């Protein structure tokens, strides 16, 4: 009996409903808060949001972000203010998609998309540079030659929610912050969440 007992397992499963899908023909719905690959956002006038402050690099537990700031050229500024990120690299061989960089960013320059269909065959592809991370003129992530992109993920992107509160006050718990400028629209708060900027209460 012993050598056939393994088949019993298979037989027993045959009648039950299947949990696997035929990816890539069929795709699961992704959780709304999926952490995919990052993008670096721009303002509507095309200026980069990144100011090269390195807070993302500082907070990154995997040490996968490398940023260098520089003085904004006065006649052709890259970002508003004094400083811009002139080097911005994420090493996806190390990134654990924890989203702490997004939490830390003071200008909502870095956000995570829902894109997950990318893999590499060499190390240099895995290190995304600033040029590769920046969104295009329409505010969408650039599709890089080695990325698969079977579709759908780049539409539902751009929103993020605070896991931590800026001042440590519990009132911020669960409050959503949205990068509305990205051109994808803003989702309504989910259950238990508060809107990002509640209207100031009168008295």
């Amino acid at each position, binding site marked *: 009996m012993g050598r056939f007992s393994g088949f019993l397992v298979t037989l027993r499963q045959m009648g039950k409903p299947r949990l696997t899908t035929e990816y890539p023909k069929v795709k699961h719905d992704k959780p709304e808060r999926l952490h995919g690959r990052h993008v670096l956002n721009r303002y509507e006038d095309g200026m980069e949001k990144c*100011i*090269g*402050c*390195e*807070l993302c*690099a*500082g907070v990154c537990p995997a040490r996968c972000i490398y940023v260098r*700031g*520089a*003085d904004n050229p006065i006649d052709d500024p890259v970002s508003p*203010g*004094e*400083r811009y990120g002139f080097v911005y690299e994420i090493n996806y061989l190390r990134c654990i998609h924890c989203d702490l960089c997004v939490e830390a960013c*003071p*200008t909502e320059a870095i956000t995570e998309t829902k894109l997950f269909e990318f893999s590499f065959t060499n190390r240099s592809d895995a290190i995304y540079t600033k040029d590769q991370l920046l969104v295009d003129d329409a505010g969408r992530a650039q599709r890089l030659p080695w990325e698969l992109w079977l579709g759908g993920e780049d539409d539902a992107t751009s929103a993020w929610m605070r896991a931590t509160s800026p*001042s*440590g*006050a519990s009132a911020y718990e669960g409050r959503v912050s949205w990068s509305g400028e990205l051109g994808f629209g803003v989702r309504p708060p989910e259950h238990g969440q508060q809107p990002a900027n509640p209207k100031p209460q009168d008295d």
Partner: protein
Amino acid sequence: MTTAEPQAQKTTVTVTVDGVTFEAQPGELVIKAAQEHGVYIPRFCWHERMEPVGMCRMCLVEIEGGRGYPPACTTPVADGMVVHTQTDAVKQIQDGVLEFLLINHPLDCPVCDRGGECPLQDQTLAFGPGESRFVEEKRHFPKPIPLSELVLLDRERCIQCARCIRFADEIAGDVLIDFVDRGDRMQVLNFEEQPFDSYFSGNTVQICPVGALTASQYRFRARPWDLSTVETSCTTCSMHCRGAVQSSSNRLVRLLAVDSEPVNHGWLCDKGRYGLEWVHSEHRLIEPQVRDGGVWSEVSWPDALDRAADAIETAKELHGADAIAVLGGARGTNEDAYVWSVLAKGVIGTDNVDAQLGDGLPAEFVLGMERAEIADLDRARAIVVLDHDLRDEVPVLFLRLRRAVLELGVPLVDLAPAAHGLSAHAAVIARTVPGEPLAANVHDEISRACEGRQGRVVVVVGRGNLAAAADSIVGAAAELARVHDVRFLSALRRGNVHGALDAGLAPGFLPGRTTLDAGRAWFTDQWGGVPAERGLDAEGILRAAADGKIRVLVLVGADPVSDFPDATLARRAIDAVDTIIAVDGFESESTKRAEVFLPCTLWGEKAGTVTNLEGRVQRVGRKVAPEGTAMDDWRIAAELALRLGRDLDLATVDEVTDEIARVAPAFAGVTSELVKSARDGAVLPVAGHLDEIVLRTGELSIMADDGSGTSWDPIKVHGEAPEEPADESEVTAHVDAPALHVWDRRAPQPEAPARDAYALRLVVGRALYDDGRLVSETPLLQRLVRDPDLRVHPSDLARIGVDSGGQVKVTSTRGSQVVAVRADAGVPAGIACMDFSADALGAALLVDAGQPVVDLRVESLR
């Protein structure tokens, strides 16, 4: 007040702060006494090295029995005082002050260089409000504006604590910035068309409690969390200020001052602080090279070393060891200098070795004089300055001197050849004329200045004039040595010149301040041989080289053509030598002709010990990996020794340090272990300074213990006196070791020609921003180099018949050239001052090392 038992001699007062009761010195400020006993009172304007002003109001406390809330920074402790710093009322005030400071403070922390190590951020977290209630428009100014080439000012971020203004005024004496306007429009500014060109401006950036003052050198280079730090000593000059050097991605990005009580009091000069870039210069040569048929080619280290060793060996065989000379060695560590000393004197057998390049003083004098420590300035009976302008040569020694004179009231006797930064505060001024003996009444003047005072007389002696022979300085020193209870403090400026001299890189000397003759037996024993006779000093070597007597010249970080006062002689010498072996980081006018180029590591890339002008041995730290395959100088020497048939058996730098301690008499006891454990290093010879050794009880941290911010309050390393003093025998040299050399106080008679009424006697000094490699390869500092001009007394200017700023033709025995001339009432009549420079217009082409003085004929071009 307590009615304790009659303690007649109670010299301390009993104070209680937040329940902690302790004894404090009368007159000590509450804020400092509390901090020393573990109670941190928040502050912004107070800095322990400056007078309190009580402006920021952050340190207000409650004192039992007193009215109101006095500032802890202006209130001295009193016996029985009970202070509270954490009552509700005090907390409310702290909260309020922080809210006030923040209302006009911009929220640009993410782009601010201070962000992440900001005292305002940190204290707001610790003591401040969670959120602001300020909804109005903040104050706006254009940002940032340059106060100078080095310092940028963002007035929006300024919290008006006046630390920078007070530093410039009280400590540096450069009153170049002040407040303008008042109320919340009050702002720090420099005066119109007068930038904040202080040699010490970088200190204001370090002590600024916010990001209002930022350094153009460090701007946006890194953020605090990607820096790593190593404690070190700055070797830009011979003061060896303690510092914390920081790097990011294997590049040196910042040097912060560490507060060392015996040395620098927490200050640095701008040249030391911002002279980092040269280490990573694109002009640096980082691979060994050899020249074949006039063409440079990069080769492997073994090939280059073989080639160098062959050249030395051949010259020695054909022409004797005396045909080989070694110049330089003052730029590296003690270990570098020592192994080069072993190589030259013990292995090759030549005594033609000199680390000073014509701007020093005879080793007989420097190594044998009765030495003062820097701290002796503070308690001196009087200070005699026998040098040029210390501010340009040893800037932080100038600050210590200034403090001793202005703050502690030590009388200053000024014997410099021309007025300098402290002349205005001198008790006695007697200008020395180059080539002439000191004024006859100088002893009377010194006694007059010290009247009613105790302590020693400290003579600060340097090579005040590169255009006059060193003899006249030694002569003057011999004259001053007759003063009762006198000590000498060397002001020779070259980075580690004192370490190099101590290591024996001087003719007639062996390591550890011992002469060739005295140490012959001991070192023959240790090394297997020493030179037979005293060799030549730098000038003698160059002269011999020019005469064709030197066949192989080894330049250990030396560039005689650009650095030796008499450039004409240096050029002739370099052109005449058969083979030059260069150990350097850069190609220079001198190394261009080299046959072998061996790239060495620079400051920041190497660890070891260095000796400062008072003889204090301290550590330098290695922060970055060397560029290319550059090697430590000592290792290059050891490799050459191996190829010349001697295995020195030295593998690590600590082994070298320990060998020096074992072999060199003055270094007895200065083991690598001692240098690592002694916080302030050790003053040579250790036996005489054992009681000054403080053991470190923690590693350097640029973060304050209480998390109150970084690098704005003095950065200190904790230490304590050793439980029991070291055994004398551990710090005493071996019984067979030679005795230390003592200066015989012989005074060479200056034999200068009488002054000619038609000529001006030349005084050449060093400017801080000179054309040395550190400055020329650091673009930021390069911009600060002044064009050399001739400074003469206005009456002489009138006699010559030219306006200040005009051009004159100057003629010395070396030749003529055209320079700009400027009136300077601080220069005595009959004297002409010039900063040293080796470029086409420089003084180096006027100086004649063969003459005791240089007299210039100055003619108007009209």
